[in-house]
């Protein structure tokens, strides 16, 4: 297990470096100079040249990348152009809210997905299966930002049960674990949970079906095991793949929260990314994407290790 874990960690290093390279290059594919956002429109040539030297934009690209990477490793992602505060501080404050939203959504989506998937796979080609599959396919086809709007229309505008936007009565800085604040989490979490619910349902349904058609299940039944015991074996065999899919989905929820956070004005990393894009705040854009991508890579690593821990066959391949 130790050997496998360390090998996986070593494999991650080139991935992390190339992710950093992509994030670095993002700023350099922007049309014109990366300074355009900082410079006033009527800036003189000297001022532009001065700033270019100050930011290091006059150096060759590989050197710039090296310097940027060196500072990034030390936790310095530069300062936000809009607020002047360090990018890392801004991102870390926002990421907490995104993680909270993603975990709440994961609890809803994964529970329902596992339940629907197991039932649909076990009662294949019955009406239960048809209902669960339809729910799943609707889940993966829904434009989730639109679902968010529809839920706001129903539960905030028409019924007036739940708040439409924001993260609590005290604004983004004052979160508390009581109903007054949790009410604000309900609609965004349900909206976020729909896609993972659909994908987990489809995966688990296919897995359950495949496992049930295998010879060892026949052997278990022939041995005289009760159906509940057989089901336990099915779950154990489906677990590694289901876990991998759920890990990936959690990563997508963390990284892809921008649309839902925009709809609900949820003060997470997605909303931060949105404001970074429209204020042309390139250091903030770059930093947010880097942090989110690193979260995703780390999560994939953890899933791989967890998968190997529960399924010894993976270690050998």
């Amino acid at each position, binding site marked *: 297990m130790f050997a496998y874990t360390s090998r996986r960690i070593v494999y991650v290093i080139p991935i992390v470096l190339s*992710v950093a390279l992509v994030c670095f290059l993002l700023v350099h594919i922007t049309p014109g100079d990366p300074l355009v956002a900082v410079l006033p429109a009527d800036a003189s040539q000297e001022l532009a040249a001065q700033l270019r030297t100050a930011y290091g934009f006059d150096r060759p690209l590989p050197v710039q990348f090296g310097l940027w990477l060196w500072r990034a490793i030390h936790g310095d992602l530069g300062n936000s152009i809009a607020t002047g505060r360090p990018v890392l501080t801004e991102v870390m404050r926002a990421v907490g809210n995104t993680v909270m939203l993603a975990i709440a959504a994961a609890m809803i989506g994964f529970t329902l997905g596992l339940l629907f998937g197991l039932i649909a796979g076990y009662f294949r080609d019955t009406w239960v299966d048809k209902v669960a599959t339809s729910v799943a396919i609707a889940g993966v086809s829904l*434009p989730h930002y639109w679902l968010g*709007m529809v839920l706001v229309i129903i539960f905030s505008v*028409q019924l007036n049960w739940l708040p439409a936007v924001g993260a609590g009565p005290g604004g983004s800085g004052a979160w508390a674990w009581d109903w007054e604040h949790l009410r604000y989490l309900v609609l965004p979490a349900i909206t976020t949970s729909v896609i993972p619910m659909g994908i987990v349902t489809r995966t688990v349904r296919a897995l359950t079906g495949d496992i049930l058609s295998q010879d060892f299940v026949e052997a278990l039944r022939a041995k005289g095991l009760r159906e509940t015991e057989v089901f336990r074996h099915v779950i154990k065999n489906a677990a590694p793949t289901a876990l991998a899919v759920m890990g990936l989905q959690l990563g997508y929820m963390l990284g892809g929260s921008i649309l839902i956070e925009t709809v609900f004005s949820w003060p997470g990393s997605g909303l931060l990314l949105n404001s970074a894009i429209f204020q042309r705040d390139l250091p903030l854009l770059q930093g947010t994407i880097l942090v989110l991508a690193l979260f995703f890579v780390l999560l994939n690593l953890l899933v791989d290790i967890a998968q190997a821990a529960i399924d010894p066959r993976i270690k050998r391949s």
Partner: protein
Amino acid sequence: MSAMSDTALQAVPATKARGYWATVGRRIRRDKVSMACAIILVLIFASALLAPWLHLADPYQGSMIRRLRHIGTPGYPLGTDELGRDMLARLIYGGRLSLVIGILPVIFAFVIGTSLGLVAGYVGGKLNTAIMRTVDVFYAFPSVLLAIAISGALGAGITNSIVSLTIVFVPQITRVAESVTTGVRNMDFVEAARASGAGPFTIMRVHMLGNVLGPIFVYATGLISVSMILAAGLSFLGLGTKPPEPEWGLMLNTLRTAIYVNPWVAALPGAMIFAVSICFNLLSDGMRSAMDIRN
């Protein structure tokens, strides 16, 4: 009993007489869900294409006194938007841009990804490693984040949003194409072609492309649904086209302010995105099971 032998009698000569694709086509035509989806999609595509000849109201012509009319108002079957423009006309005209920006990235990615995957899978060795490791890098980003990152860095615009979505889908299609090609590469008929003196380009184009295209095509059809949602999502964020252009994602964004006045009109553009997306998903599922003849 008699019904069973009937179908058995019909099925045997049918599968023998028809080729693979004819059988697949016949199986799709028999699938009610797939056919319903195909008909809905054809209707949406045709109305978008023929919009100027449908005697619709001008989708750009607003009116301050007729803003946010309800669904079913005489003269405005689907109501009016926040600037008093006819929703029916805007939804139909909106399909033109929305379908183009949703589908073009998948077509581009299909062409690029299939070529890359075919070359990587057939040539193998160092070229395979180079292509597939580059693809891995893009897998280290959640696709929504990657699309928004590229689109956000390039700036708003239709071309940029198509480019960013193409970049998101190329790695996924390349992976599928590579794995299918690797499966086909060592089959006897490829060996036979090589023995008869065919060059690598000819083998890839003549002998392998036809065998790998099917699975890749099905995978790509499934991506159209994601692409429609993401493309409209980019417009929804303001990274796609600009007002007053009718486009479903952008319409959804500008109508967001109207949800307290006329909520169901505001939700209409999203329903269009949903309809197209679910139809492509169901059609792709239908195609997948139709092509799986062994079952």
